[in-house]
């Protein structure tokens, strides 16, 4: 597979709901925990207890403030590989270690053949690939390929670690090629969008935008009943309403 597959059997990917993501980092640390012992083990850390700690992570959570001139809005923003349909991160790879799987569209790095030239990370506009200095190979989101088909774990757990752990339910996994899948439906229903669509890599992962607040049936202010109380004060009106209501 020198180049990208003509088409893939499925388009497996994630749908991330920015309307419910609270930025808790659960998906980031679950990802790290699963993957440091999984397909691309390890995800090394440098200076872990020192002045400049850093390491390879496959999923990172940003937060941004948006300002539309009225009120600032904070958005938590998880970011991992989007398993693009036409990404150069695969085609630039000189070794073929970076490839897109024919059967499900997952973009993977083969840790046994990667030479660590980093070119694929240069070709990714999303900053989704992270080089493991210790291991000398490129690491990236595997869509938890070693979970989603794993027959040694219960069927309901055959989802990516990040999806499995997300406490708010902001992450969903499925086939975005199948219009009947839950993920495809939520993308339609909620106006799911691509990151940096203009770039043309055709990401598979989709993001759902923050919803506009729906005020429950814009309430009409209730007009207090007028009463023939001496002062017609709010208190008198209240008491008279109470008496009437209870009698």
């Amino acid at each position, binding site marked *: 597979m020198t180049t990208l597959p003509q088409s893939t059997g499925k388009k497996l990917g994630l749908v991330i709901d920015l309307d419910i993501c609270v930025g808790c980092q659960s998906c980031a640390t679950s990802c790290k925990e699963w993957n440091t012992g999984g397909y691309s083990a390890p995800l090394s850390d440098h200076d872990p207890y020192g002045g400049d700690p850093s390491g390879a992570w496959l999923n990172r959570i940003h937060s*941004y403030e948006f300002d539309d001139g009225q009120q600032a809005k904070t958005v938590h923003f998880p970011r991992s590989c989007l398993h693009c349909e036409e990404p150069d991160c695969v085609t630039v790879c000189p070794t073929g270690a970076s490839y897109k799987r024919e059967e499900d569209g997952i973009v993977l790095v083969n840790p046994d053949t990667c030479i660590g030239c980093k070119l694929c990370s240069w070709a990714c506009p999303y900053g989704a690939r992270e080089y493991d200095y210790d291991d000398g190979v490129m690491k990236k989101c595997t869509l938890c390929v070693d979970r989603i088909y794993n027959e040694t774990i219960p069927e309901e757990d055959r989802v990516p670690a990040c999806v499995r752990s997300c406490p708010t339910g902001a992450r969903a996994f499925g086939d975005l090629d199948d219009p009947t899948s839950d993920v495809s439906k939520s993308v339609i229903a909620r106006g799911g969008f691509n990151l940096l669509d203009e770039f043309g890599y055709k990401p598979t992962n989709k*993001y759902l935008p923050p919803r506009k607040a729906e005020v429950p049936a814009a309430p009409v202010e209730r007009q207090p009943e007028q009463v023939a109380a001496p002062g017609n004060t709010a208190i008198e009106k209240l008491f008279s309403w109470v008496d009437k209501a209870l009698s």
Partner: protein
Amino acid sequence: MHPAYSVIFFTTASGAGYGLLFWLSLAEAVGAMPGGRWLSFAIIAVALTLISLGLLSSTLHLGHPERAIGAFLQWRSSWLSREGVAAVLTYIPAGLLALMWLFNIESGLSSILAILSAVGAAVTVYCTGMIYGSLRTIRQWSHHLVPLIYLGFAAATGALLFGFSLAICVSLPMWTTLLILVTTVTAAVMKISYWKQVDADPGQYTREMALGMPHLGTARPLDPPHSRPNFVMREMGYSVARNHAEKLRTLTMVTLMGAPIVLTLLAMLIGLTGLWLALAVIAAGVGIVTERWLFFAEAEHVSQLYYGAARA
């Protein structure tokens, strides 16, 4: 982009080496090569040494140099792979030429080998340029002039080395002088025009596009995902202060463009060609490294939109 010294050394040394090989081969092919076989051999040896050192150094930044052989596999899609293949293929005619000179083998094949070497050199440098030129993630790189500038400076630094070699071993023919002047001026014009163009381009991608929600208004980063820089920030987020870059650009213009032209003219007009050209080689050496360093340091990667850049 992070300016990795191994990569800077690789592209500059192998660029000059391929340039030198290119001019030597052309001179040989058209029969314009002065001096005897030893001179030709010496020059091709220098060229191949520069090329080999460059290629070797490029493996230094690999995580797994021992697997480098795998890099030849994907020539259908990968410019890096193509470059590797071209480089290896170029070794064949160039190596044979060198052997013929070394063992004084006279053969009509030599001009064919020379032409193949020249083509190989040009193709390899073009591939190097296209490794960068094909990356749409970096607007300073995906520019159409990038492979041409790689070719241009390979030609200019190669010509300078070629001229210098002739000057110290035999004498500097006028066509070589002109070659140096023409290639240097061409490369300089391309580079300056490139700078003008990339400076005028604010970048077509914005942070809001990267986040995909322009309707929410302007965005700015609040908390980064990690306190300390990660790989993506170190590799792709390297940036150089504007005024520092200006100074380095001036240095590039002086050492890589101005000095070789002036010194070559001096050589042409005053004599003492060996001395002037030696100075020109030194100046251009400083210049090309500076130019290449800047090529990386000034390159802005789209991924940095997630880490605070407003445009890329």
